[in-house]
């Protein structure tokens, strides 16, 4: 395919805003690099002057115009590219791609869509189509059903199992949706919901209360070769936007079966949308059982893809662009090692934690809790050989005045247990730093892992990787119970210096 393509149009991401930030500058730049290496001319549409991708050296032609279908159509008319890439500029670029296709612009000019075909993108973007597709290929989605009467609602809920979420159909923004834990509650909620619904229909959905949320990053080429580059586990349960979640990679609480089952499913999701390039697939996993559900997929470079690139060192955007040009995975050489091919799954001997950075005081009348909408303005990523070290580094570098998980303003605040629990329930930003006052009310008994005591409270509240927190807690207890005898010994002793170094 790459022999017939002389000029490629790449749709950039435009202005930086919450949820669409510099990661799309990164993906666009990588794509430009990958395409230009092939001796193909590049045309970039991006309206943001303050990005790397709009630097004069990055692209052959640059249009600094709004990223809308009509503006891009003008560029197409003028430049007549052979191919178009819409997967490297975030959701904006993807939407423009779909718009251009629906209006027949791409077809009229005979342009090849490089990467995932538009039909696949549409299947991934529309909630209904995605659900249908998943059911078609036999992948599990959260069970749901609609009801037009109270009895019907009760019947549907019985099939699904409690707790259930009751939604009023055709009500935007999820308003009027409630959670019912028992049949009694359901009957009450359903009556109210019917009163609100114009068409007299309610939607009963399984409520994935405190299920684990996981993300897989999948690469797939036109031949169907796939590799799953990273698995990211959210410390926050379902219902918290990924951009608002504290996450850890690689996944820490999955056993082999869980990991592989979801890995295989993520590849089948990629297959079902005819992915060529990169996508991320989100799963909900029951913390007390084997069930998992496919939640959604983003058939493009996303925030988590950018994170996964940094976590693993695998250049996702670069490789995705090569795949879009018609390479197969084993043909692409891994830029990191310089000798191995891109068909592999990075294995880490470290852990990575990402913590969002909130700046809520800058926004007027903003709700002070972490939820389904993204409000964080940035994030910190830290790499370490242990969970505690990674968390400590990340918190210190948040630049919120906390020196780490211990000893800062939030740590020192004299919060009662009730207040701390309340704050956790609300899921205020930096909830993981909360710590209740010591029972005596005086100065806290402090240890290097002192603040992880919050983990104990959290256990009632969240489904994070609690084993880690509990492990740390017992660690602490063990330490206090059995102080190291005599002289402290070094971490390791190597007779000669060779091979020490890193770590």
């Amino acid at each position, binding site marked *: 395919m790459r022999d017939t393509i002389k000029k490629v149009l790449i749709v950039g991401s435009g202005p930086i805003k919450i949820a669409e930030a510099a990661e799309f500058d990164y993906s666009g730049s990588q794509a430009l690099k990958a395409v230009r290496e092939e001796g193909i001319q590049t045309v970039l549409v991006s309206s943001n002057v303050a990005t790397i991708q709009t630097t004069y050296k990055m692209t052959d032609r640059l249009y600094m115009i709004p990223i809308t279908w009509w503006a891009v159509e003008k560029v197409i008319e003028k430049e007549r590219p052979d191919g178009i890439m819409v997967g490297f500029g975030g959701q904006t670029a993807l939407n423009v791609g779909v718009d251009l296709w629906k209006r027949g612009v791409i077809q009229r000019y005979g342009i090849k869509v490089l990467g995932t075909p538009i039909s696949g993108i549409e299947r991934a973007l529309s909630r209904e189509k995605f659900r249908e597709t998943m059911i078609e290929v036999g992948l599990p989605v959260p069970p749901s059903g609609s009801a037009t009467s109270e009895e019907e609602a009760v019947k549907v809920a019985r099939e699904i199992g409690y707790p259930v979420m009751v939604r009023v159909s055709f009500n935007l923004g999820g308003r009027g949706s409630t959670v019912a834990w028992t049949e009694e509650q359901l009957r009450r909620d359903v009556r109210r919901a019917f009163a609100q619904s114009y068409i007299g229909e309610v939607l009963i959905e399984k409520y994935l209360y405190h299920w684990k949320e996981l993300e897989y990053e999948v690469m797939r080429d036109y031949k169907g*070769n*796939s*590799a799953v580059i990273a698995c990211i586990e959210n410390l926050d349960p379902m219902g918290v936007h990924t951009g608002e979640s504290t996450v850890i990679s*690689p*996944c820490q*609480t*999955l*056993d*082999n*079966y869980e*990991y*592989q089952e979801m*890995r*295989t499913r993520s590849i089948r999701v990629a297959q079902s949308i005819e992915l060529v390039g990169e996508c991320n697939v989100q799963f909900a996993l029951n*913390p*007390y*059982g084997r069930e998992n559900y496919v939640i959604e997929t983003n058939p493009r470079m996303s925030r988590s893809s950018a994170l996964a690139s940094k976590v693993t060192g695998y250049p996702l955007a670069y490789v995705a662009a090569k795949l879009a040009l018609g390479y*197969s995975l*084993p043909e692409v050489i891994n830029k990191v090692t310089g000798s*191995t*091919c891109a*068909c*592999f*799954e990075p*294995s*880490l*001997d*470290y*852990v990575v934690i990402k913590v969002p950075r909130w700046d809520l005081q800058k926004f007027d009348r903003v709700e002070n809790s972490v939820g389904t909408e993204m409000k964080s303005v940035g994030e910190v990523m830290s790499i370490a*050989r*242990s*969970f505690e070290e990674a968390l400590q580094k990340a918190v210190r570098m948040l630049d919120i005045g906390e020196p780490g998980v211990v000893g800062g303003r939030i740590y020192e605040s004299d919060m009662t247990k009730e207040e701390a629990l309340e704050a956790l329930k609300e899921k205020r930003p930096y909830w993981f730093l909360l710590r209740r006052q010591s029972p005596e009310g005086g100065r806290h008994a402090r240890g290097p892992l002192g603040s992880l005591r919050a983990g104990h409270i959290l256990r009632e509240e969240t489904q994070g*990787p*609690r*084993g*880690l927190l*509990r*492990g740390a807690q*017992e*660690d602490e207890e*063990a*330490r206090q119970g*059995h*102080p*190291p*005898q005599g002289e*402290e*010994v*070094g*971490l*390791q*002793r*190597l*007779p000669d210096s*060779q*091979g*020490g*170094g*890193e*770590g």
Partner: protein
Amino acid sequence: MTYCKRGTKGYLYLEDGTLIEGCGFGARAVRAGEVVFTTAMNGYPESLTDPSYRGQILVITHPLVGNYGVPKKEAVEGILTNFESEKIQVAGLVVAEETEPYKWNSVMSLHEWLHSEGVPGLSDVDTRAIVKRVRTKGAMMGVISSGYEFEDPRKFLEKRYDEIDFTEFTSPKEVIVHRNRSDEVIVVVDCGIKHGILHSLYQKLGYTIVRVPCKTSADKVMEHRPVGVVFSNGPGNPNLLKEPVETYRALVEYGVPILGICLGHQIGTIALGGRIRKMKFGHRAVNKPVVDVTNNSCYISTHNHGYAILDKTDMPYGAKLWFVNPDDGTIEGWYHERYKILSVQFHPEARPGPWDTTWVFDRFGKLISP
């Protein structure tokens, strides 16, 4: 500044003279073995019970091990579904950090498991430094200790890994039968089979499985009137195994469809005139690519081998190239056109690892009944 949460120190001695100090966990014991590392990030219950690791000290490169504890053993018709064999097979385990579990199906911690099975563990060491050493100097013998000071670790290193026939420890002493939907029989020449392979055969093909000891003659195998024979994985040096090689050669003459996996693949290679050599430090991972050269497809697969066909000139007579590792060119599988033989070096059953290549079992099924 290390302190040991269990109050026990531990050591790892490498034959190049390196002595590494850390914390002991699991059983108080000293064990010798070949020091190898795996880069798998989860699946430690499967890895530790994999008979192919017999006689080896396993270093897990991922730093946190034990987060999800150890589940209860579950089995279908005598075939374990969540472990690879009845007990821990590794001589010792080395991790950076051994953690306490919190998981719905965990019945004990990693420490408790190792302790109950008499296997020593070593934690709080720089696993990356060990891996770098093994990678530059090649596979090494080593001695692991949990709770004991070394006086002279060299005395444990009298025999080398490559000189010991470990299948003596991993192969069953008697015939074991797993009844299935069909009464027709697949014979498994069991040199230390992973239950993952049995499970895949059992589920996918439906034949009754008869497991015979590693050193069973071809005549004894044929007494079961098998529709197909599987040569299993197993530990150690394939060049020491004379009897299974003989058996393989004779079975080829009988014309029975054969599937060889890992050690079984190596036995087959030697039987048909190929050569198996020791690799510098082997492949032990769940993220290795293999390219099917017949159609240029790429799969991510589980590897656990220290020996392999290193070169095309080492290929067995009449065999066709099937799988190659694109990174270092190791030959990972071949098939035979004249005889009905499939032979793979990697582990299509995964466990731990990706399910991308489980179709190899279906292909074997087609070989048996087209």
